[in-house]
């Protein structure tokens, strides 16, 4: 194990140690592989994007090809929160709670322009300017509504991100 002696910062040393630790990094790679191939989504949405989510799960587009079809109704067993709709002030506590109930590691996809920024409803008195104002978002998928293929693209991008290990752990 070679440590960079020039770096005096302790934190860097720890990171360096972690990076050079063969055992842990290999396991980490395996875990990330497993995680990236099995996002079990929990879907939130209002009207048009969820229709596309349903289409994505159905025969023509088939989310199951990537192994992401196990849609859980329970946040406790979900890995991926798909927010597909504008967040109103009334739904804000629900989203926050569901997010808090999901076990780590967890990810969020903001699907559609409503979820990203409030979309056409951005001037509404009760609409939040995007999900990222309450919970951290990993992938933004613009569209109105998002095509099922675009949703897959977002999920595959997230897969790349997870496989590289670049995700936060709160």
């Amino acid at each position, binding site marked *: 194990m070679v440590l960079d002696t020039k770096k005096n910062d302790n934190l860097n040393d720890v990171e360096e140690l972690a990076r050079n630790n063969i055992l842990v990094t290999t396991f980490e790679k*395996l*875990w990330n*592989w*497993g*995680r990236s*191939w*099995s996002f079990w989504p929990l879907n939130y949405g209002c009207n048009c994007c969820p229709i596309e989510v349903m289409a994505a799960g*159905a*025969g023509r587009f*088939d989310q*199951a*090809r*990537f*192994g992401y*079809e*196990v849609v*859980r*109704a*329970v946040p*406790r*067993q979900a*890995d991926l929160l798909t927010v597909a709709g504008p967040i109103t002030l009334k739904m804000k506590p629900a989203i926050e709670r569901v997010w808090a109930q999901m*076990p*780590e*590691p967890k990810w969020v996809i903001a699907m559609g322009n409503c979820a990203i920024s409030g979309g056409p409803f951005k001037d509404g008195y009760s609409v939040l300017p995007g999900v990222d104002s309450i919970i951290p978002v990993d992938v933004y998928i613009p569209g109105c509504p998002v095509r099922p293929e675009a949703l897959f693209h977002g999920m595959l991008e997230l897969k790349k991100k997870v496989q590289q290990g670049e995700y936060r752990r709160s």
Partner: protein
Amino acid sequence: MEALFVNLAAVLSGWLTSLGLSPIWADTVLLFVKWIIVITIITLNIIILIWLERKVSAFFQERLGPNRLGPFGIFQTIADAIKLLTKEDIVPSAADKLIFKTAPMFFIVVAVMLYTVIPMGQGMEVINLNIGLLFFISIGSLSTIALLMAGWGSNNKWSLMGAVRSVAQMVSYEIPLAFSLLGVVMISGSLNLQDIVAAQGKLWFIILQPIAFITYFIAATAELNRGPFDMPEAEQELTGGAYTEYTGMRWALFFLAEYTNLVAVSALMATVFLGGWQGPWLPSWLWIIIKTYGVILVFFWVKWTFPRIRMDHLMSFSWKVLVPVSLGNILLTGAGIYFCRWMGWC
């Protein structure tokens, strides 16, 4: 090939006695080895089974199913298992921690215990109990308690509701389940599963007992909490039923146990109604696997065809249709046996 595993067991037993162990201890060690083998096979089998269900359900809906990981997506379940193993393990602060943590273990232990008596081939079973069938039913009834523990321990309204439903459902469906097997017991005159298999040398009991087969199939579907009778974890009404609060590996244990139950019940069905390990050309342990998988595919077929039915319909179906029909079947079988003896056929 036929006596492959039996010979292996004999060799192991001989080796153990040559080490200086007394026969009783050698038998005990051998029993544990058998258990470990059974558990390993169950786990591997279930990894394949979950993949199979995803693939089969996809084909029923003209989809492709998992096809990215490995050939035909066969490693999909392994990725899921790795993910579930590394998930955060949440125990709700308001839950009854002891009961919450014990429930999945209890469930899987009960599910694995079912394999004690199932004959996996000629002379291949963990214990040759003379009351095997009854043992299977009685151990199967214990899984209710595990669900009840999960539902109550979670301290969650969905969990409790799911547990209450599952208990009501399983207690009512145990009666037609046991009654439909009684016809078979009356014909074969034994509760030993190997004897029942031997009694089917000429004619499978599915031909002699078609009504019992159908009632058993329906009751078993309800006992397994599988669709269309998956009321206890109805996602649309109860989010996750008794498993609502479980995360990661604890939830996976429940899932594993459900599939273990599925395989056990299918294997029992193959044993009792479809001639067990008997069959031409192939070795006996292969026949039981083929038959079990056939029954499992029928379970999949039923699950992915029918929508979930209502709770009160489910209960009234059990008490008003299945129980009388299975009782009638017993009466009919008794009359048939008397008639047969009177005519001098048997």
